[in-house]
C-alpha cells in the first residue's frame, strides 16, 4: 500500500523529469501475462512519418517551435500506421527528436489518430549535461540500443522497420536485423560501435543488450522512405529485405506482397494520398510501375491487387467517393501502366547479403561530412 502510494506520488514527477530530459524514458514492455506480439512495426518519426526540414539551423529552429497542428505527416503514412495497428501488432516509435518535444509530437500523433505502444525520444539534455557532444549527432549508439531494449521488453515473431534516407537508418536497421538473426557476432558489433564513435562506457551496455535480446530471423522487411529522393540504387547492397520507397503507396504495395496488408487497406492508404492533393491517380499508377521496374514487387502481385481491390471497391471500400472514376477505370489505368513497361526482366535479389558494417559506417560519416561542408545538417 505504502509503495503504491509512493509510486503514485512520484510518477508525475518522473514524467515531468522525462519531459525535460532529466530522466530517460523507459518504454513499458508487455504487461505481465500478455501474449507475445505477432508483429512489431518500428517507425522513425522525422522524415519518415513527419515531413520535417532539417537542412539548416533555421529549419531546426522552425521544427522546434512548430505546434502539433503545424506538423505534417507524409501523405498515406497515417493511414498506413492505422492499418498496421491491429490486434497482436505493436507500434514502436524511436525518434532522434529531443525528449522535450514529446508533448507536441504525442499531440500530433493523437491528432492523426495514431495509437502506439512505445515512443522513445533522444535525451539530448542528458548528453549535453554529461558533456557528451558526440552523442548529439550519433545515430547507431542511440537507435540500436533503443530498439534492442524495446525487443527485450516485447519480442515479436516478425518485425517491420520504417526509416528514411536522411540518416543511417538503413545501416542501423540491417545491423539490428543481422544481430537478431545472429549473422553479426558481438565482436563484430563492438567494432561497428567503435567505428560509430560510441562512448566507451556505452559499448558494453549495448553489447549486453545485444546479447540478451531474443534472437531469431524476425526482421523480414525494412522500408526506407526516400525523403531526400536519394537514388534507390544506393540501397541495393542491403538486399531484397530493404525497400526504398518514394511514397507510402509503394510501402503499402510491398506490405501487400508480404501479406501484411489487405487490398482494402492499400486502398485506404491510396485514398489518403489522393486526399492530400499531392498525388493524383496517375502518380499512384506510376508508383506501381516504379516498384515493379525496380523488382520490389512482381507484376503478378500488382495484377492480383487490382483484382482484390476491385472486389474491395465493390464491397464498399470506395463508397462515398464520387470524386473518383469508377474503379474498373482506375484498375484499367493501373494495368496499362504495368503493360507500358514491356517485357522487362525482374531484378535478381540477394535476400540478406553479408554487409561490412564498419565500412558502411565509415562511408556514412564521410557522407555526413560532405553534407556539412555543403552547408546542410
Amino acid at each position, binding site marked *: 500500500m505504502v509503495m503504491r502510494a509512493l509510486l503514485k506520488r512520484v510518477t508525475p514527477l518522473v514524467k515531468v523529469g522525462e519531459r525535460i530530459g532529466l530522466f530517460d524514458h523507459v518504454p513499458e514492455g508487455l504487461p505481465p501475462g500478455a501474449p507475445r506480439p505477432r508483429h512489431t512495426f518500428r517507425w522513425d518519426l522525422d522524415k519518415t512519418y513527419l515531413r520535417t526540414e532539417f537542412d539548416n539551423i533555421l529549419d531546426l529552429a522552425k521544427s522546434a517551435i512548430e505546434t502539433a497542428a503545424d506538423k505534417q505527416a507524409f501523405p498515406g503514412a497515417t493511414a498506413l500506421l492505422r492499418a498496421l495497428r491491429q490486434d497482436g501488432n505493436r507500434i514502436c516509435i524511436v525518434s532522434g527528436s529531443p525528449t522535450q518535444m514529446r508533448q507536441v509530437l504525442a499531440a500530433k500523433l493523437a491528432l492523426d489518430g495514431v495509437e502506439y505502444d512505445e515512443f522513445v525520444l533522444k535525451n539530448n539534455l542528458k548528453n549535453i549535461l554529461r558533456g557528451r557532444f558526440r552523442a548529439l549527432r550519433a545515430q547507431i549508439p542511440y537507435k540500436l540500443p533503443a530498439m534492442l531494449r524495446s525487443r527485450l521488453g516485447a519480442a515479436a515473431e516478425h518485425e517491420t522497420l520504417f526509416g528514411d534516407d536522411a540518416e543511417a537508418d538503413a545501416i542501423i536497421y540491417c545491423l539490428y536485423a543481422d544481430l537478431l538473426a545472429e549473422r553479426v557476432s558481438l565482436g563484430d558489433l563492438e567494432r561497428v560501435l567503435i567505428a560509430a564513435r560510441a562512448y566507451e562506457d556505452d559499448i558494453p551496455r549495448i553489447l549486453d543488450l545485444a546479447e540478451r535480446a531474443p534472437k531469431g530471423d524476425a526482421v523480414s522487411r525494412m522500408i526506407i522512405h526516400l525523403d531526400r529522393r536519394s*537514388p534507390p540504387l544506393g540501397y541495393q547492397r542491403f538486399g531484397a529485405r530493404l525497400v526504398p*520507397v518514394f511514397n507510402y503507396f509503394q510501402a503499402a504495395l510491398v506490405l501487400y506482397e508480404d501479406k501484411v496488408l489487405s487490398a482494402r487497406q492499400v486502398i485506404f492508404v491510396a485514398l489518403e494520398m489522393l486526399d492530400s492533393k499531392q*498525388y493524383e491517380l496517375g502518380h499512384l499508377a506510376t508508383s506501381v510501375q516504379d516498384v515493379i*521496374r*525496380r523488382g520490389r514487387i512482381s507484376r503478378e502481385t500488382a495484377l492480383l491487387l487490382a483484382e482484390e481491390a476491385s472486389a474491395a471497391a465493390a464491397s464498399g471500400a470506395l463508397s462515398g467517393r464520387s470524386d473518383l472514376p469508377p474503379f474498373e477505370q482506375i484498375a484499367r489505368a493501373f494495368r496499362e501502366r504495368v503493360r507500358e513497361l514491356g517485357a*522487362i526482366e525482374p531484378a535478381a535479389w540477394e535476400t540478406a547479403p553479408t554487409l561490412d558494417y564498419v565500412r558502411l559506417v565509415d562511408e556514412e560519416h564521410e557522407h555526413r561530412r560532405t553534407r556539412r561542408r555543403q552547408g546542410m545538417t
Partner: protein
Amino acid sequence: MHRIVVDAMGGDHAPDEIVQGAAEASLQLPSAEIILVGDSAVLGRLLPRMRHDGARVRVHHAPTFVDMDEKPAEALAAKPEASIVVAADLVARGEGDALVSAGNTGASVLACARRWTLLEGVRRAALAAVYPTELRRGEKNDPFSLILDVGATIEASAEDLVGFAVMGSAYAKLVSSNRRPRVALLSNGTEPGKGPPSIVAAHAALVETTELNFIGNIEGIDIPRGVADVVVTSGFTGNVVLKMLEGVSETVVRLARYAHKERLAWRLGLVALSSAIDQLKSITDWQQYGGAPLLGFTHPFIKAHGRSNARAVTNAVKVAHKALSGNLCGNIARTMAELDERWQRRPRSETSGVMPPITE
C-alpha cells in the same frame, strides 16, 4: 497534372543525359509527370542511379530509336516503333500533353507532323530557334531572340508568315516573360516595300494588327543586335540564316584558338579576357534555354539541342511545362481566330500558293 513525354533515346548523349535531365525535372516540377519513352530495360537500369521522384517519372517501352544521322522519312518508315514515333503517338492519343526530344530534328518534326493536328487557323507549323543577342528582353532579361521558321517548311506565304508572327510572339510572351515582344519580318531592307511579295504582303497585314508589337522589317545584321525579340522568316531563309550564324560563331572560336597558339602576347590577351569570355558564355549558354519549340500544333513540342546534357534536358522539360501551364497553344489559337476575321476582310495575298509539305 501536365504529362510531358520525353524521347529518352534521342540525342548525342542519350539515354544517360536525357534520363538524368528528366529525373531532375521530376524533382523540380511536382505538378508534372514525365514519361520516358525508350528501351525499358535500359531506362530501368538508369533511373535508380539518379535522384528522382518515382511517382512522377514513368517509362513507356519503345524497342528502337532513330539515330541522329539517319534520314528522317526512311528511318520512320523502317522503325515504326522508334522512341520518337511512340512518343508522338502517346501525345496524339491524349496520353501525354507535350513532347521533348533532343533527337534527330527531321525525324522528330516529321513524327509530330504526321500524327498531330494543326491548331485551328494555323496553316503551317514552324520550327523556332533561339539566338543570343546583344540586347536583352523581358522580365527575365532573356539574352535570346526567337527566329522562326528555321526549317519546318521551305517557303511561306504571307498568311503563313503572319501565323509564324503570332506563334512566335505568344511563345516569347510566355517563355521570356516578355509582355510585348517586338516582332519583325526578316527582309533585305527595312522599308515596307522591300523583299519578295510574301514579305511585302505579310508586312501590310502585320502593320494592321493590334495584337502584336510589330516593329516592321529588319535586316540580317539586326538579328545578333537583338533589335527584334521574334524574327519571322520562311523556313528556307531561316535555316540558311541560322546555319550562317552558327558558322560565324564557330569561326570566331577557331580564330581565337589560332590566336592562342600564334603569339604569346595574344595568348596573354585571351587569358586577360577569359573571365569576360566565361561571363559571356554563361549569359549566352543555350543549355539554360533548354530547347526551341515546334509551334502550330495542338500540343507543344520542344526540340532540345542534339548535344543536350542533363541540364539542357531539364530546362527543355521546364519550358514544355511552362508552355502547358501558360496555355501556349490555346493563346495561339485565340489570337489566330482574332486575326482570321481581319484577314478574311483583306484581299487574298498574291503570294499564297501551294507549298511543299513539312521537310522530309
